[in-house]
């Protein structure tokens, strides 16, 4: 029908996100359930407080990582669907003209949740590879006897089956709302354009006009670029403190999740901006705008979002860790107060600036390679 399996394979980003979410959630939930089972055997007062701290951490980490990533996955999924509908508007218009109902077309979008299923399934499997090590580390101080890894089918249901069904539903409902456009607009590829006209006096130059229009036509991407900077900044800074607060293992895990998420979302966003502006860029090049002009017009608008995302991520990780330290270690004496680590912040910022601006320059190269004949291929 409309959406084929091949299309869903392009949604690697969704799979990666759900993969990360399920790895983290399954590790902690499995541990949480097994930990609950031995509650009565822990009697030593110090062990009890450690025990409670770990139960608490599991809850906090699960809801934060799970919630955050689930939300990001939804936005990413919606973004893909919108992108798909926009770039296939002619085909969809023809189907509608032939008499296919919106509902019938939207049903095929549920196939997109296949990528959620794959990500969840792989994540679920992968978490069991890490599980043994994770259990050992959680009990590194030998506060209680070693916990046997239990297998909980209800977690499979919760972390693999339920998300798949939910996302299939989301995909249907969202695409239904997006398909509700006059057939002729889909066929002609008419884009809805609303714009408040500024006073004709404060005219900027063309490149800035182009920049603001690109930004307006791709608002979701502003979110994703900010999100990827946010992931980068928060997870890297957080991981730098995990060795003191939890374990090196946790640090590594958070670091790798942060980097993977940051890079996938960033790559997806920037590629999709370029993809959807391919023709416009080619046209600008035909007119004699340089590759750096094109980059300014198409990509530079996102810089502010990226740096805001970075700042928010830094604050977020600070307050999150502060709260975690307060909750988790509330019964333990002599826990030093958690302060904002400027050294780590500046190092992360420097790496971020290098990476961000460097990647943008790489993309400028990519713009240079866009074939000028691109526009002639209809």
């Amino acid at each position: 029908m409309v959406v084929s399996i091949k299309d869903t394979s392009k949604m690697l980003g969704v799979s990666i996100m759900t993969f990360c979410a399920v790895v983290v959630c399954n590790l902690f939930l499995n541990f949480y359930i097994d930990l609950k089972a031995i509650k009565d055997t822990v009697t030593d007062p110090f062990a009890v407080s450690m025990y409670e701290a770990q139960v608490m951490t599991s809850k906090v980490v699960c809801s934060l990582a799970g919630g955050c990533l689930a939300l990001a996955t939804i936005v990413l999924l919606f973004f893909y669907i919108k992108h798909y509908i926009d770039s296939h508007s002619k085909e969809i218009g023809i189907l509608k003209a032939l008499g296919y109902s919106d509902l019938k077309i939207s049903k095929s979008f549920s196939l997109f949740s296949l990528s959620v299923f794959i990500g969840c399934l792989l994540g679920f499997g992968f978490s069991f590879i890490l599980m043994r090590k994770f259990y050992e580390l959680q009990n590194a101080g030998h506060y209680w006897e070693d916990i046997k890894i239990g297998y909980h089918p209800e977690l499979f249901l919760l972390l693999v089956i339920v998300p798949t069904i939910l996302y299939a539903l989301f995909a249907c409902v969202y695409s239904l709302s997006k398909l509700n456009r006059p057939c002729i607009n889909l066929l002609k590829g008419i884009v809805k354009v609303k714009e408040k006209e500024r006073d004709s006096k404060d005219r900027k130059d063309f490149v800035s006009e182009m920049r603001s229009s690109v930004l307006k036509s791709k608002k979701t991407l502003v979110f994703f670029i900010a999100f990827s900077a946010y992931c980068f900044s928060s997870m890297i800074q957080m991981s730098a403190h995990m060795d003191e607060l939890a374990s090196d293992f946790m640090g590594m895990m958070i670091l790798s999740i942060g980097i993977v998420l940051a890079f996938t979302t960033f790559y997806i966003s920037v590629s999709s901006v370029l993809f959807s502006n391919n023709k416009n860029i080619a046209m600008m090049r035909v007119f004699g705008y340089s590759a750096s002009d094109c980059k300014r017009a198409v990509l530079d608008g996102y810089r502010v979002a990226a740096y805001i995302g970075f700042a928010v991520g830094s604050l977020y990780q600070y307050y999150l860790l502060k709260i975690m330290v307060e909750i988790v270690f509330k019964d333990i004496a002599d826990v030093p107060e958690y302060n904002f680590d400027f050294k780590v912040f500046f190092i992360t910022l420097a790496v971020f600036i290098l990476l961000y601006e460097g990647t943008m320059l790489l993309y400028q190269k990519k713009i240079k390679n866009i074939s000028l004949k691109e526009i002639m291929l209809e």
Partner: protein
Amino acid sequence: MIEVKDLTKYYGDKEGRFKALDNVSVSIKDGDFIVILGASGSGKSTFLNVISGLETIDAGSVSFDGHELSKMSEKELTKFRKDNTAYIFQQYYLLPHLNVEKNVRMGADLAGTKDFSSYLEAVGLKEKAKKFPSQLSGGEQQRVAIARALAKKPKVLFLDEPTGALDEKTGRAVLDYIIKLKEKLNFTMIMVTHNENIAQTADRIIKMNSGKIVDVSENAYKKDAYEIGW
């Protein structure tokens, strides 16, 4: 002055190699109005893309006022396009998210043209300055594309079937605009078409067939856009 010498252009790689231009030579004077005429697939668009520096060549040379295009770096080519050429396509290629006025500014900014609205006026679209391309008819969109190209004050204007998607009435009107503006501003104009009637408006007609130039003739009976058949 555009000088084309022994130009050859291939498409595809070794096995599926296809000679799209075969040993083409021609020279075009400043201020000339040339029409390139030929059947579909004869290599007209390829020729236009090559002499405007959009496509690379495999042999021969294309030089513009003595500067050879194939020897230019990407940067020099960009500057060359910025300073000298404008292109009008059959499919308009307006920027869909920008209104008419801003589309014209795309050309105007490059030439430092401040009064870009006079170009909109020239193509009769001043009232539609705030409309978006999707809100215009095909002929109107093509006129925006023309205003955008002319606001760039090109030395050479390349047109690939500019009236191909238009009906007779709009087609004639658009052609008339272009020819009048050419006479007023006196740039070089090179237009591709497969329509023999349209060719009658030119100073010189270059006929192409299977990648070769088969005939170059002065057009003694130059007609305007309303005198030709359609």
